C-alpha cells in the first residue's frame, strides 16, 4: 500500500471550521440515534409511574381550567366569541409545544455535558430529538384538543373549522423551528456564562403574555392600537392565531404575517445551527 495522499483524509480536526458547514451529512448518518433517543425520552418519561402517558393530558387540562377561571371569568378578557376552555386549550397546546422545545433545547449542553464529554456524534441530534420527542407529547395533547372540539361542536357551540386547518403541518414545523433555533442560541450562549438561563426561565413566561395565548389579537388591536405591533410581530402570535382560525374559525392572521413569521423563524434557525455547531467544538472546556 502507498502513502496516503493528502486529499484522502476523511476527517480533519482543526481549530476553526467553515461556519457554513452545517454537517448535515454527518447528521443523516446518525438518524437511527435520533429515533433511539426519542424512544428513550418517551419510555423513561413514564417508567415507574402509575398514570404513565396520561400525565401528558393532566397538565393542559388543569391549566385550561385555571385560565378559564382567572382570565375568562375573573378578569373577563374576551375570547373572540369562542367557548372559553376551547380558546385557552388551543393556545396552551401550541404554546406548550414551543416553550417545551425552547426550554429543553436551551439546556442541551449543560445537561448532556457528561455524554458530550466522552464521545463524538453530531450534537445537533440531541436538540432534534427533543423537538421530535415533544412532538409525541404534542400529538397526545392535540387529541385532547380535538376531543374537546368535538364535544363543543356537538353541543352546537360557535366553532367553525375551515380549510385553513390544512396549514397545521406548516404551523407545527414553524413552531418546532422557532423553539429549536432559539433554544440552540440560548444553549450555546449559556455554556460559558449561565446568566442567560435565568433570564430564559421568566423570559418565556413574559413572552407568553406577549403572545395571544390568553387573549385574542383582535382584542389587543382594538384596545392598544399603539402597542399592538409588539404582539403582532411576535412570530408565535401568527402561528397561534392561524391555528385558532383553522380549527375554530376565529383568529386574526394573514398569509403575509405568516410569511413574515416563516422568514424570521428560518433566520433564527440558521443562526441557531451555526452558533450551535461553532460552540459544540470546544464547549466541553468551558461548560
Amino acid at each position, binding site marked *: 500500500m502507498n502513502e496516503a495522499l493528502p486529499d484522502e483524509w476523511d476527517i480533519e480536526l482543526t*481549530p476553526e471550521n467553515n461556519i457554513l458547514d452545517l454537517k448535515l451529512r454527518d447528521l443523516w448518518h446518525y438518524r437511527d440515534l435520533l429515533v433511539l433517543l426519542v424512544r428513550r425520552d418517551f419510555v423513561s418519561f413514564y417508567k415507574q409511574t402509575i398514570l404513565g402517558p396520561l400525565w401528558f393530558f393532566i397538565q393542559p387540562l388543569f391549566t385550561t381550567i385555571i385560565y378559564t377561571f382567572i382570565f375568562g371569568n375573573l378578569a373577563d378578557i374576551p375570547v373572540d366569541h369562542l367557548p372559553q376552555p376551547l380558546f385557552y386549550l388551543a393556545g396552551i397546546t401550541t404554546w406548550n409545544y414551543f416553550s417545551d422545545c425552547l426550554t429543553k433545547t436551551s439546556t442541551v449542553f449543560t445537561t448532556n455535558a457528561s455524554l458530550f*464529554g466522552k464521545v463524538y456524534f453530531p450534537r445537533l441530534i440531541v436538540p432534534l430529538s427533543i423537538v421530535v420527542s415533544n412532538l409525541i407529547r404534542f400529538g397526545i395533547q392535540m387529541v385532547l384538543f380535538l376531543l374537546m372540539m368535538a364535544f363543543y361542536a356537538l353541543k352546537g357551540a360557535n366553532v367553525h373549522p375551515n380549510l385553513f386547518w390544512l396549514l397545521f403541518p406548516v404551523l407545527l414545523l414553524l413552531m418546532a423551528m422557532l423553539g429549536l433555533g432559539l433554544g440552540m442560541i440560548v444553549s450555546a450562549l449559556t455554556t460559558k456564562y449561565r446568566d442567560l438561563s435565568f433570564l430564559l426561565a421568566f423570559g418565556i413566561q413574559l413572552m407568553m403574555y406577549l403572545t395571544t395565548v390568553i387573549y385574542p389579537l383582535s382584542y389587543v388591536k382594538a384596545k392598544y392600537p399603539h402597542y399592538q405591533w409588539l404582539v403582532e410581530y411576535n412570530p408565535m402570535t401568527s402561528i397561534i392565531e392561524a391555528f385558532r382560525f383553522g380549527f375554530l374559525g376565529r383568529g386574526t392572521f394573514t398569509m403575509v404575517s405568516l410569511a413574515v413569521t416563516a422568514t424570521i423563524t428560518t433566520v433564527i434557525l440558521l443562526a441557531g445551527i451555526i452558533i450551535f455547531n461553532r460552540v459544540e467544538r470546544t464547549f466541553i472546556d468551558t461548560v
Partner: protein
Amino acid sequence: MPTVIKAENLSKAYQLGEIGTGTISRDLERFWARVRGKEDPFLKIGEENDRSIKGKSDVVWSLKDLNFDIEQGDAVGIIGRNGAGKSTLLKILSRVTAPTAGSVKVKGRIASLLEVGTGFHPELSGKENIYLNGAILGMRKAEIKRKFDEIVDFSGVGRYIDTPVKRYSSGMYVRLAFAVAAHLESEILIVDEVLAVGDAEFQKKCLGKMNDVSKGEGRTVLFVSHNMDAIMRLCSHAILLKNGCLTGYSQTDKIIDHYLRADFGTTAIRKWEGKHIPGDGTVRLLEVFVHDESFKPEENFEITGKIGITIKYEVLKSGCVFTHGMNLFNSQGVNILNSHDVTSASRKQPRKIGKYSSTMWIPGNFLSEGTVIAGVAIFNPEPFYLHFQEADAIAFNVFDNLNPESARGNYVGGFPGIVRPILQWNTSSI
C-alpha cells in the same frame, strides 16, 4: 502500511481558574483581537503545563506542538504521568473537543471508548441500551442488529438482557458496555483505561479482543493506560507525553523503560529532605540506595552480580517494633517479588531513638535483565500497621552481557521470564 492518523503541531490550551465575571473582559479582548485579525493575546503567554509550579499566566498548554503519524493496524499506547496530556490527546482525537492550534488528519471512522457505558440510560433494559449505546458510538441500527447476538455473547450478561441496567452490578455494566464498543466497525479504536474495571477474567477477554482488533483485523488501536503490563502486551509502539510535549515515540519496551526511569525521576540513590519525607511520628525515611557488594552506589548491574538495597531511616520514638519491606517491579509493572525482614535478630527488638540502616541482598543470577523499580515500606506485621510506604523509590538496571556463567549458559538468543535463576537439573537414565 499507510498513515491513518497524522498530527501536525497539535496544541491545546486550557484556561485555568474559575469562569465568571472576570473572564468576560478577557473574552471581549480576545474577540477584539480576532476581529482585527491578530493573534490571540492570551495564548501568547501560555506556558508549559507543570501543575506543581504555580505559573504567572492562567492559560496553560495541555498539549504543545505534537507531531506524529500512526500507521494502519498499529496498536499505540499512550503513556505519561497524570496531567501529561494523555486524556486531552484522546479527547481531541475522538472529537470531543477541538484543538487550539495545529491539526489532526484521520482516515476512517473513529470510535472512542473514553468511558464505557457512555449514554447508558438506567431505566432502559440491557437490550435497549445496546441499541442506544451502539447508535451513540456511530453504529447503524441494522449493524447492531446483525451483531446483537455476538455482543450479548461477548458480554456474558445474556440472562439479564431484558432487565433495566440500573439493576446491574458495576461489573456487568462494564461488560455490556465494552462488548458494544468492541463490536464497532470502526477503522480506529480509542480506549482509555477501561481495563481498570471488571474482574481479571474479563480484563483478559478485553485485552484479547483488542489484540484481535489490531493484529487480526488490521484496525488501529490507541490505548491509554497506567497498566504498563497491558500496554506492553497490546501495543507495538508507544507515545510518551510529558507536560504536554511528546518526549518519545518508539517501540513500546523502549518507551516504557524510558518513562519509568526518566519520568519518575527514580535513580539508584535517593535522599529525602525538607517537607515531603515519607514517615510518621515514629519513624521516617532518610535514604534508599542500591549498591554492589562493597556498598558503592551503582545503577547498572551485571546479571551475575549480587545487588544490595539499603534503607536508612530515623526512629523518632523509642520502644517500637517494626520491620522493613521492599517491593520490586519490572518495567512492565509486574511485581517481581516482595520481601520483608523475617530472619534478623533485631527485627523483634524495640528500637531506640536514632538513625538506622538496613540492607536487603538480592543474589546474583536471580533477576532477569531490564529495569527494576523498587518501593520501600516500614511496617509492623502483627498487628499490621503501616508507618509509611514509598512506591517507586529507586530504580536500577540489570544487564545481561551474555556471560556464560549466567542462567543463559552458552545460549545467546532471546530469554524472556520475570526472574532468571540458575536452577539445578538432574538427569538419569530410566
